């Protein structure tokens, strides 16, 4: 199977080179003809405008054809994305490209010639004749085989080189210019910046909700219990008063727990004191289902990366417990060269919505650090949240 696909890919490359050689000839002819046609037209301003326009559209069409050839036959995925180059750049490209195309055609022609020679020799020898009076002695066969092998190697190297050259020329003349790249980067940064602000606001809203709908309600309820206890006491019902006080006492302890949890959700203080490994161990301990943690990062990553990784894990674990009804969770944190990879996988029901509030916030946080964020969660499970964070 693998061999077959390699054969298909090679055949495509050869076909692409052949087509490239043909278009090189066509381009050369076209450019020459265009020059001949255009030269007299330049004298007439009205005709000049029209013929320039015509030439530009032809040049663009040729360049587009080459771009498709690179993508379709050479598997150049970058070429697929080249956009917005004008006729000037396209013309420069065509002017530089045609020798490369001819070079590819030349190497292919050598191949054909070599293959024909070998075929003729073998055919003559098999039918008992001597081509050019050369007998098939072992010495001759060895010498020819070595020569063929050598030529074949050079030819294949040449073809690979031409393919690479084609790609480079296309990237240089049709691909994004440094200014384009900068503009794209700026657009991306603006987007992630806006996303970060939105994520921060969403987090603040969540904290406000946590305080109001959790802690404040409990405090009001505590006040009510104490108020009722006092009224019972004042009314002379000591038993009820004592019972209410006991309830109030228990409630005050629960409020403390809740407050600790809210503070922890705002920012886990253990990250600063203990580091990511221990903070993740804490997440695993607090989870109501078995969670295994494999932490394999030699040195401490930068603080923003640590925080993002922690929140990703924390949210993913919460989701797995709450929505996926998972029975076990695995957390794996590794680092290869300059990238830290965090994977949280569970055996739950899957079908997680990456557009959910929690996951969206995390994706934004990761994007702001130039990281990559993916949720793989087919319906029926399992779910994996995978994050790659650059630690420059």
């Amino acid at each position: 199977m693998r061999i077959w696909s390699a054969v298909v890919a090679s055949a495509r490359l050869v076909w692409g080179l052949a087509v490239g050689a043909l278009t090189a000839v066509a381009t050369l002819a076209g450019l020459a003809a265009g020059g001949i046609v255009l030269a007299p037209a330049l004298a007439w301003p009205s005709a000049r405008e029209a013929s320039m326009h015509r030439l530009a559209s032809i040049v663009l069409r040729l360049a587009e054809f080459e771009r498709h050839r690179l993508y379709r036959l050479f598997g150049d995925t970058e070429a697929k994305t080249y956009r917005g180059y004008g006729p000037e750049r396209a013309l420069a490209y065509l002017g530089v490209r045609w020798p490369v195309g001819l070079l590819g055609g030349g190497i292919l022609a050598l191949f054909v010639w070599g293959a024909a020679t070998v075929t003729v020799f073998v055919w003559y020898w098999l039918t008992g004749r001597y081509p050019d009076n050369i007998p098939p002695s072992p010495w001759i066969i060895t010498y020819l085989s070595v020569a063929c092998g050598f030529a074949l190697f050079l030819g294949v190297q040449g073809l690979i080189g031409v393919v690479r050259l084609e790609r480079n020329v296309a990237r240089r003349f049709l691909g994004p210019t440094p200014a384009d790249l900068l503009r794209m980067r700026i657009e991306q940064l603006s987007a992630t910046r806006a996303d970060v602000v939105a994520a921060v606001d969403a987090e603040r809203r969540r904290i406000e909700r946590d305080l109001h709908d959790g802690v404040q309600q409990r405090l009001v309820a505590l006040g009510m219990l104490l108020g009722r206890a006092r009224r019972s006491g004042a009314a002379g019902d000591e038993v009820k008063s004592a019972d209410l006080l006991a309830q109030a006492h228990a409630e005050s302890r629960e409020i403390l727990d809740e407050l600790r949890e809210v503070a922890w959700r705002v920012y886990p203080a253990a990250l600063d004191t203990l580091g990511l490994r221990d903070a993740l161990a804490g997440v695993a301990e607090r989870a109501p289902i078995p969670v295994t943690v494999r932490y394999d990062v030699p040195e401490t990553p930068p603080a923003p990366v640590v925080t993002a990784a922690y929140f990703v894990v924390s949210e993913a674990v919460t989701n797995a417990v709450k929505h996926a009804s998972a029975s076990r969770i695995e957390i794996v944190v590794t680092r290869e060269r300059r990238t830290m990879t965090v994977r949280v996988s569970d055996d739950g029901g899957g079908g997680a919505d990456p557009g959910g509030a929690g996951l969206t916030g995390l994706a934004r946080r990761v994007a702001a650090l130039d990281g990559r964020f993916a949720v793989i969660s087919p319906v029926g499970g399992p779910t994996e949240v995978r994050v790659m964070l650059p630690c420059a």
Partner: protein
Amino acid sequence: MRVIIAEDSALLRDGLRRLLVDEGYTVVDAVGDGAALVESVSRHVPDLVVADVRMPPTHSDEGLRAAVEIRRRWPSIGVLMLSQYVEQRYAVDLLTGHGTRVGYLLKDRVADVGEFLEALARVGAGGTAFDPEVVRQLLRRTTHTDPLTRLTGRERDVLDAMAQGHNNASIAARLHVSQSAVEKHVRSIFDKLGLADAEGYSRRVLAVLRYLGE
């Protein structure tokens, strides 16, 4: 007194229910969101509703919208709103509808059991109850409008208590003065604010608060 409680926090809902039962109210239902509240009111038609402003699904003003609807369809039902914050707009909205049988308290006030029960009783008796903090903020907002600055400190105290929904006897008790002294202060306040003296204290409160709220 038959009461319906609408509050999304189960803990608080339960606490309120117990408190009201302790005090001899009949709690006919306790619900957790605005839609359920209107539905429950149409089924039971209670005397009083105690409702949180902020409830699911959006946690913005479901309770208030339910209250406005209840007041429109069953004007005889008293409504006491509980709010997380002082929302002056809400207070003014509630007042400008029909200024009786409404109350607007800060949620934290529930913890002052005595004050909360007193406010509830006032609304139940056909009066009004506004949180002292709400009134204070409304007053503070209008200090730049001159008529109020012409009031004496005592008169401001009286207005403050009046705006909360206390009647003259209650104001007299609170400020430790005679009732006739309170009546004198009230007349003076209305003179200074240029309001015609009308019968019925809730309408007067309404007039004052509307004046303050605009």
